[in-house]
């Protein structure tokens, strides 16, 4: 080591200089700001999830309350209107559909079938099928949806009521309350009884507000399909946020001045599976592409031009030879650079969908969950934090500046999904959504935090199978 170096090192390496006053206060306030920034971003990301949970749980709770009220009404009605006496062969069938209880909101049987039965002779009425599940749908009590005490009392009540309708030897009914049921009335005693059934079932039908039009596909109305495939596309609005860590806003200002948003989009596939009453889980793959335009003008750019000079050698007024020379000339000027940047991300969504309301045409669901980023790619140019000149951001480029993370972690997803039932197994989806990315997409070594929040409108189709 050089002697000068050694002297400087020995004297300065462990030297303590005076600490400027107030510098700790500045650091403390900067750290507070950073902490505040974390907290201020958190509500946005959590709010969507909380909102979805509140809406879901609230709706779910209200639905449960309604179910209890309807239990009494319907069963009382049934007990009053169906003083049916049946012979010993009458039986209840509990296995006609492998249908989940949740799918039965109303009649699936045709009203005309009931009327047809009443006009026939007793001997002809051998097989009037009334979907018990449908008639007493609100009485269906699903395990897990009520407490044990409620469950027991409801079951007792239900048994008691039904025992007024159904002969005592049909004890199997009480054990099959939790399954879709169908009453097979194989024989009826007389026409009077049929008329009674007819008139009283009308009351039940009115009480249940049975739709008179043909049913369309809806998770609550027709045959149950527990799987679905969504395909969607969205035009996206990108809310880009750059925040400076160092206190020097030069880089941030330059980046904001040189980058402008362009049309961005996302598309994906989602598989869905019905896991319970109104609840579906979805997962799949989502591709998003954020497009930006990078425009930079270098006012002090110069180009090297090659000038070819040809000298002619004359002799007696005639050209006898020529000499070609090549010179490089530096031409000062400015350079305008336009690059189209692309930020591509591939995410795996893990979503829960709760159907808030539905009729035979439409259903409205709330969707919430997370998306796990599995890969991100970027291509284009930005202003370098080191030179404040344009630099490639693609990792594959030789002069590429590694600024962005390979994996962006978890983002929060929330949406309202409106489905129009096109056919029995096909829905059209309109789904306004927000995807909030809580963490920076840039590396910690980069002096700017960069975040992308995405807002868009998914348009797609849902195929149920």
């Amino acid at each position, binding site marked *: *080591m050089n002697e*000068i170096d050694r002297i*400087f090192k020995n004297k300065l390496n462990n*030297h303590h*200089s005076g600490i400027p006053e107030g510098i700790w206060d500045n650091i403390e306030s900067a750290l507070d700001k950073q902490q505040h920034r974390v907290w201020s971003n958190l509500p946005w990301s959590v709010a969507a999830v909380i909102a979805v949970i509140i809406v879901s749980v609230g709706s779910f709770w209200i639905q449960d309350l309604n179910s209890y009220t309807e239990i009494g009404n319907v069963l009382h009605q049934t007990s009053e209107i169906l003083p049916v006496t049946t012979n010993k062969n009458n039986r209840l069938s509990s296995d006609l559909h492998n249908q989940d209880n949740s799918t039965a909101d109303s009649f699936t049987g045709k009203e005309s079938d009931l009327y047809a039965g009443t006009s026939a002779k007793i001997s002809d009425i051998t097989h009037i099928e009334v979907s018990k599940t449908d008639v007493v749908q609100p009485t269906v009590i699903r395990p897990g949806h009520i407490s044990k005490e409620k469950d027991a009392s409801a079951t007792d009540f239900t048994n008691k009521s039904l025992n007024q309708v159904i002969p005592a030897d049909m004890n199997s009914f009480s054990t099959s309350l939790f399954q879709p049921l169908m009453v097979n009335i194989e024989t009826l005693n007389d026409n009077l009884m049929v008329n009674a059934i007819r008139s009283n079932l009308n009351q039940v039908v009115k009480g249940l507000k049975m739709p008179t039009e043909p049913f369309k596909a809806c998770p609550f109305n027709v045959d149950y399909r527990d799987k679905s495939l969504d395909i969607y596309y969205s035009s996206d609005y990108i809310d880009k946020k750059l925040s400076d860590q160092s206190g*020097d806003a030069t880089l941030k200002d330059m980046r904001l001045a040189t980058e402008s948003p362009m049309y961005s989009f996302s598309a994906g596939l989602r598989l869905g599976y019905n896991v319970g009453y109104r609840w579906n889980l979805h997962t799949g793959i989502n591709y998003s592409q954020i497009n930006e335009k990078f425009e930079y003008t270098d006012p002090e750019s110069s180009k090297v031009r090659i000038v070819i000079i040809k000298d002619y050698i004359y002799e007696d007024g005639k050209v006898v030879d020529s000499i070609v020379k090549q010179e490089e000339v530096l031409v000062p000027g400015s350079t305008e650079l336009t690059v189209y940047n692309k930020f591509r991300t591939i995410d795996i969504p893990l979503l829960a969908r709760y159907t808030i309301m539905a009729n035979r045409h439409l259903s409205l669901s709330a969707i919430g969950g997370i998306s796990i980023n599995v890969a991100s790619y970027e291509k284009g140019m930005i202003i370098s934090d080191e030179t404040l000149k344009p630099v490639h951001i693609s990792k594959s480029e030789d002069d590429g500046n590694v600024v962005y993370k390979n994996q962006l972690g978890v983002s929060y997803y929330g949406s309202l999904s409106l489905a129009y039932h096109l056919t029995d197994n096909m829905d059209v989806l309109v789904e306004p959504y927000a995807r909030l990315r809580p963490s920076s997409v840039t590396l910690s070594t980069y002096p700017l935090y960069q975040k992308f929040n995405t807002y868009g409108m998914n348009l797609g189709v849902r195929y149920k199978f």
Partner: protein
Amino acid sequence: MSPLIVNGRTEKEILKACLQGDRQAQKDLFYMYAGKMMTVCLRYARHHQEAEDMLQDGFIKVFTNLGEYSHMGSFEGWVRRIIVNTAIKHTQKKSFSYEDSGLDHVREDAEDPDALTLLSEEELIKLIAALPDGYRMVFNLYAIEGYTHREISELLNIEEGTSRSQLLKARRILQEKVNALYTVAI
């Protein structure tokens, strides 16, 4: 060596508390190293205000990235590296350019280090601060931090030859300034 204890807490305990967001621990940690790091910043900065900015930004990065400290090397060395990197970026942002000259014209003068030993630390810092940006960076990194020319070339994005020539020029300028000081003094 007995562990450094500040306000009844060892460095390890202070670090642990810092990670939990204990502001007093962060303050203790800052004052534990701020004096030394201020000297580092003064060596890289052109003036005192710039050194303050470097120190402030450097410590914000230290606290922000504290979770990444692996406890493998000395904590002081880790802090110093962050401060040095912050200082380099600060200086580069001011868009100085390295004087890229070959070694041909550079002659290493006969040195008279005795005069240097008579100077105080503050005077030495002032001498370094007066160097052109490129010379100052290379001299600091090579002579005091102990980086090799190869590492400097990668860190500052310059040729190794440039790093060598700038180091020689820095030494010569420093020597000339010391000689001038003594000539005036005599």
